[in-house]
């Protein structure tokens, strides 16, 4: 069965600093990979996705993620965070199209001035 690990439960970053959120997955083949963001009291918004091809994917709000097959990782990065980036971030995987998503436990991002 597939699984997703987000090792950082909570990260605090200064506004303007760079950010990297870690995600590792366990699956026999290359799954479909996603990052979602959930602001307090809000729904889930898709930041970016990886299906195949270029391993560096660009998303919305200035986020990017890099798929590394050898490390089974799909880490999320942003060069300079803004106070509005404070939220919960979830990494998720699916074996293929129209298959169930498995979510990591999430990383809560706090931004300090």
């Amino acid at each position, binding site marked *: 069965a597939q699984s997703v690990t987000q090792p950082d439960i909570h990260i605090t970053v200064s506004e303007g600093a760079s950010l990297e959120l870690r995600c590792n997955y366990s699956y026999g083949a290359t799954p479909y990979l*996603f990052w979602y963001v959930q602001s307090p009291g809000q729904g889930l918004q*898709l930041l970016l996705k990886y299906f195949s091809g270029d391993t560096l994917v660009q998303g919305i709000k200035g986020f990017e993620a890099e798929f590394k097959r050898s490390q089974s990782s799909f880490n999320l990065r942003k060069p300079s965070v803004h106070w509005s980036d404070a939220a919960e971030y979830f990494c998720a995987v699916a074996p293929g199209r*129209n298959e169930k998503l498995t979510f990591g436990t*999430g990383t809560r991002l706090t931004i300090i001035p």
Partner: protein
Amino acid sequence: SAVISQKPSRDICQRGTSLTIQCQVDSQVTMMFWYRQQPGQSLTLIATANQGSEATYESGFVIDKFPISRPNLTFSTLTVSNMSPEDSSIYLCSVDGQGSGYTFGSGTRLTVV
């Protein structure tokens, strides 16, 4: 990408009663997925609803507690039956957005008192 209208957005219910949550998608989709997000937790899949067949439930979830209907390719309901305070959660539906990633409804925040 698909747009999902989910309702109600929130409800406060008495224990022992039932609540039905509705999701309407603006396009025809094969699969619809129902998730639960307990307070401070990640998302857990309850079941997968395929039009024309019975829903497939994940381990720990049973049809008697979470009956699902899928009458056509754009609509599904999830009922939370005989509720207890432990059912207080956010419930979300999701569909595969056909290349644009999985889209989620805005969620139903359920409080059982």
